[in-house]
């Protein structure tokens, strides 16, 4: 496993100058952090030259404090039984990334999902219309600055709760004459 990983790291670093590896897992996982311009070429290289023929997932992480979105491509090699995470950071206010559906056709589905849930724009996306959310008019809902509770509060009706059950623990202890233990008091509402 170690020689395999070292081999992959050496080959990737020889071909892509901006790739930084992150090899801190002792199982079959390997991470690479690259610039966003390198994404199509590194994925093409991994697929065609190194046997990572299976695209497992495209995911996204919202780094709100740093103003960046991190897009993660997970590829898998059935021959070597190793998965490689290719990560890239893009600007949160202008999240544009190269389309990779000429490498894997099925990437289109993930790209449409990322466009809808995180607002990541892929250049030349096939079928860019709505995917899962119907009639959605708000901001992309998986971004961390989207407050779902506030949105639900102003969009949907909420059934008001019972007035006598505001503090359930206290109500029960009063009714049954039990004492609330000290460790439970800090959870009181």
């Amino acid at each position, binding site marked *: 496993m170690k020689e395999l990983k070292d081999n992959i790291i050496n080959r990737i670093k020889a071909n892509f100058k901006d790739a930084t590896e992150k090899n801190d897992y002792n199982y079959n996982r390997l991470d690479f952090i690259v610039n966003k311009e390198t994404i199509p070429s590194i994925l093409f290289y991994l697929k065609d030259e190194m046997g990572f023929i299976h695209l497992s997932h495209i995911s996204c992480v919202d780094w709100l404090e740093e103003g960046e979105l991190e897009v993660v491509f997970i590829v898998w090699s059935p021959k070597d039984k190793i998965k490689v995470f290719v990560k890239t950071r893009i600007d949160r206010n202008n999240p544009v990334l190269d389309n990779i559906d000429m490498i894997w056709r099925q990437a289109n589905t993930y790209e449409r999902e990322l466009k809808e849930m995180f607002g990541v724009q892929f250049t030349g996306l096939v079928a860019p219309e709505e995917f*899962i959310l*119907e009639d959605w008019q*708000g901001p992309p809902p998986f971004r961390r600055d989207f407050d779902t509770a506030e949105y639900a509060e102003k*969009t*949907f009706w909420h059934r008001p709760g019972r007035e006598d059950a505001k503090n359930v623990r206290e109500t029960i202890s009063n009714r049954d004459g039990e004492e609330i233990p000290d460790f439970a008091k800090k959870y009181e509402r």
Partner: protein
Amino acid sequence: MYNDKNSQKIVDYIQNWTRKHSIWVLAYGTGCGAIEIPPTMTSRYDSERLGIRGAATPRQADVLLITGYLTVKTLKRVIRVYEQMQDPKYVIGFGSCTINGGMYFDSYNTIKVLDKYLPVDVYINGCMPRPEAVIDGFVKLQKRIGEGRATGAKHYKENLEWYRANQKKIIPNWVMPEYNW
């Protein structure tokens, strides 16, 4: 004689009695609650002994089970299904999600209170309600039908504008056919 109030009462009694013993449930599940329906229908809890069985299409069914959370997208389909159903028709809200949102109380895409959008005859609480609770809900519905109190469909027809306004408030792109029943 036929317009006599007492004879109408007898007709209603017989009608309700027959209706309550053949509850056909539309085979349609919206949330995770649909997983409790197979054990309810099959041999262990065998709800067919009470006359409760599945129906394939909305036009053959009497009861619409809303099993669990209901997204805005699914609500569109549920409204269409409900309006295609023939009289008599009843709605059972199933699980705490239909009552107050349940664990999806702050979700951006699920409705919290079902009876603003569809007339609910019986609620079954619990997350998830077990098959015993489901059968108990059906028995409650049978009791209400027998007493002639399960009048959700009538209520929906009379207050259609109120329900429509509520539905259109969260479904901005309304492209549904109007059923003229």
